[in-house]
């Protein structure tokens, strides 16, 4: 603190010496900051870019949970992520090119369900309907373990006022029609509209 400021503060608070003034200031500052933090409603922005069954889970789970914690949440669906906003969801999973995905039986005795079947790429790529089968097995596992369906999580998000926004460019790019998508979409926007929301968010995630 320079001499002028010191003089000024002693004039303003003649009954306080400098140490006491600093202490009071720090205390008030801490109180004010704690109040601001307590009043702050956390916010989260997610960008969802994938349209497979496995990659549909993270954005909806995080969004629904954050909303349950009282946060303000927006999810921007772009490219293949836009598929997650269709009226009719028919999501699939592809084990091909997805080496970390376990291939496990959803039914049968415990020992059988624990086996991770290593299936060669050639088989996964060559057998017609392999993805349909893998999707069926994954859906069965999700159901067995009490994990919510994407439809359920999506409606829970809407119920909790999560803002689901859609990318206009993707609709144009893939010759889609806005009519194919759920009417609860909060807006058809572009990157320039989403970024300012993301800028003010406490948490930003790209899925």
């Amino acid at each position: 603190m320079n001499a002028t400021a010191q003089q000024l503060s002693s004039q303003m608070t003649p009954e306080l010496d400098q140490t006491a003034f600093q202490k009071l200031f720090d205390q008030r500052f801490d109180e004010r900051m704690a109040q601001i933090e307590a009043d702050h409603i956390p916010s989260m922005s997610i960008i969802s870019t994938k349209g497979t069954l496995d990659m549909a889970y993270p954005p909806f789970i995080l969004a629904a949970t954050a909303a349950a914690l009282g946060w303000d949440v927006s999810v921007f669906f772009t490219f293949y992520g836009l598929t997650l906003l269709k009226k009719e969801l028919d999501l699939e999973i592809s084990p091909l090119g997805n080496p970390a995905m376990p291939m496990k039986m959803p039914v049968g005795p415990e020992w059988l369900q624990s086996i991770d079947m290593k299936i060669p790429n050639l088989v996964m790529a060559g057998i017609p309907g392999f993805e349909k089968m893998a999707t069926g097995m994954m859906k069965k596992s999700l159901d067995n373990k009490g994990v919510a369906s994407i439809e359920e999580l999506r409606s829970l998000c809407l119920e909790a006022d999560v803002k689901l926004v859609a990318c206009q460019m993707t609709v144009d790019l893939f010759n889609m029609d806005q009519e194919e998508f759920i009417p609860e979409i909060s807006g058809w926007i572009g990157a320039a509209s989403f970024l300012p929301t993301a800028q003010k968010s406490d948490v930003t995630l790209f899925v």
Partner: protein
Amino acid sequence: MTTATPTTTLDARGLNCPLPILRTRKALTAMASGEALLVQSTDPGSVEDIKSFCSQTGNELLSALNDDGEFQFTIRKA
């Protein structure tokens, strides 16, 4: 001090993350401030999740019991 006897019971057994939390939130919304909710769950992840949910939302976690893999939480609505 209001009573800790639960007025509502939520059966979240067999449900997995994040459903126990979402159902808890929903059940609490319908309750009056000061009332207690009993949540039953079998999801081991819910132990930490319920704790975190309560500290974030200001609701008070009165008790958390583990009865051989079946969990019981009593939460007082703020």
